[in-house]
């Protein structure tokens, strides 16, 4: 190669990397510090959830759906049960619709605060990270007060919800609303007015609006590029039919839109306030009535066994549009097939646009800016080829190998 001719190098980030919360590999092609191109290789935690669902009835699949993701577990349940309700023509009692809405918004609050904290952590702003995580505890407490769990709440079921908003839980919710309205402003200011935050996030990982459309970006990622899209607005479901939600876009607040990491940060932080308002309205308008369309499980299962059709549901999860499609066949107890499309699956396609021309040091920040949830995106893999070289290792086998290595090192 002639002297002076540009030569690029390939650098992997991942599958395991300090800047990543979950495993995914991004191969960066770099020219000096500048990223020329990127190739994403997911697949490190594909668990075969859609495949597993074929041997389970819809009630059992609810709990499988809940475990797609630890952060937006209720969003996946919600989308799944709505798809089943669509396939089996089940209508949900009004009170259950409102409780679902409250749960969805609580989950959005905790997901957005967690993300905003982690984003600060990514560029070394640890005090904002700690403040974010401290603030997040409140909503986790409320989720625990309602469901008994901090994650995987077990609240949703087909045709309704399994937990009520009791007077005690309502008090906890009101208390939480007061707390955030009082305390969250500190985080908002610390994060948005800090010059370093702006320096690290402005003009980084830009996604122009026309690319956001063409690459089908969803949720806060799309809104940060200035697109007015929000499924709670364009296709209201549950209590969003009564509570109007308008999409939050940076141009309405800052006067201009860049579509960069800062705008993604801003949209999420502002959406926390929006969620608080939605929770308050849903709590005030919470109608009385039953929690489930059919509380007796054997009857519900019989009804689902008799159902025949395809159901489709797209809802606005914290990270964007979460789509579930399901097929129920008459006479078959189990789910015939099921397709999950988590928001990250849609947003990751636009990573190459965000990365091109950026510096390596910004890579973890850009990766995190769409709030990637790799477990959400990847769901399959129980199938393995025993005959060939790859094998799925069980915990016991791993433990065995680990112990063998210790013994080897000890010379025994």
């Amino acid at each position, binding site marked *: 190669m002639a002297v002076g001719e540009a030569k690029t190098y390939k650098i992997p980030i991942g599958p395991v990397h300090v800047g990543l919360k979950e495993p995914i590999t991004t191969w960066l092609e770099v020219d000096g510090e500048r990223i020329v191109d990127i190739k994403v*290789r997911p697949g490190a935690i594909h668990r075969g959830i859609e495949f597993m669902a074929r041997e389970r009835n819809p009630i059992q699949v609810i709990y499988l759906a809940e475990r797609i993701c630890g952060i937006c577990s209720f969003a996946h349940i919600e989308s799944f049960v709505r798809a089943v309700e669509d396939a089996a023509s089940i209508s949900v009692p009004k009170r259950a619709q409102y409780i679902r809405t409250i749960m969805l918004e609580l989950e959005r609050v905790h997901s957005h605060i967690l993300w905003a904290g982690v984003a600060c952590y990514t560029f070394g702003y640890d005090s904002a990270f700690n403040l974010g995580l401290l603030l997040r505890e409140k909503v986790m407490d409320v989720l625990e007060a309602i469901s008994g769990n901090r994650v995987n709440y077990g609240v949703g079921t087909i045709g309704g919800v399994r937990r009520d908003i009791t007077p005690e839980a309502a008090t906890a919710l009101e208390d939480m609303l007061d707390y955030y309205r009082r305390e969250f402003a500190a985080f908002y200011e610390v994060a948005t007015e800090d010059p370093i935050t702006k320096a690290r996030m402005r003009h980084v990982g830009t996604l122009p609006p*026309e690319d956001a*459309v063409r690459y089908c970006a969803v949720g806060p990622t799309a809104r940060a590029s200035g697109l007015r899209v929000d499924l709670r607005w364009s296709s*209201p*479901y549950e209590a969003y039919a009564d509570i109007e939600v308008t999409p939050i876009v940076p141009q309405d607040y800052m006067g201009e839109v860049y579509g960069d990491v800062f705008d993604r940060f801003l949209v999420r932080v502002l959406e926390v306030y929006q969620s608080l308002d939605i929770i308050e309205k849903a709590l005030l308008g919470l109608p009385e009535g039953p929690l489930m369309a059919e509380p007796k499980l054997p009857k519900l299962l019989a009804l689902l066994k008799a159902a025949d059709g*395809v159901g*489709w549901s797209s809802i606005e999860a914290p990270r964007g549009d979460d789509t579930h499609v399901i097929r129920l066949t008459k006479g078959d107890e189990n789910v*015939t097939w099921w397709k999950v499309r988590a928001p990250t699956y849609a947003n990751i*396609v636009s990573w190459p646009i965000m990365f091109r021309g950026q510096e390596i040091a910004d890579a973890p920040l850009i990766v995190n800016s769409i709030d990637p949830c790799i477990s959400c995106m990847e769901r399959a893999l129980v199938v393995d*080829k025993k005959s060939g070289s790859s094998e799925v290792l069980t915990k016991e086998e791993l433990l065995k190998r680990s112990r063998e290595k210790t013994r080897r090192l000890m010379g025994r």
Partner: protein
Amino acid sequence: MSRRAEYTDKAMASEAVVSVIRERLGDAVEVVELRDRKAGLSDAVCFHDLWLRCPKDKLLEVLDILFELDFPFFHVMSGNDEGEAVLLNYHFSLFQGSGRASRLGVAVSVYLPKDDLTMPSIQDRIPGAEYSEREMREMLGINFMGMPDESLVFLPEDWDERIKPWRRDEAGPKPEQIRELS
């Protein structure tokens, strides 16, 4: 030909979209159902899902008609091995940026006979369909003609590509290749 890359702010009534499709494509495309999706205290219809079925050589034509109305946001492709054929459902949305309660979901079902599992790629029209086409290629064995990247997306690097995990025939995994995790 440059296609639109923005969401329209002018929504059309769902019934009007159905008439456009009927008018332009006649019997070639079957309008299976226009489904009401209700919610809220008054159980009002908040949006619709339109289910279409079309032969595989008509998909691009359907897509181009949708492009005239709005940028068809691509959600995902769902699919199944139905025995004689493999079913693919393309899930799109129209008018999701056109105002409150204006979205129309459009699902287009295509049946592909087992002896010709090919589809034209839609990535030149909608680049966002990349992962879904790659997923359907590795999971169900559909070949999308003209897709730029045919590498695996979710399956491991050393996967035996003859095995298509979601197929229910001899192309699918054998029972002894599946490990039940208790």
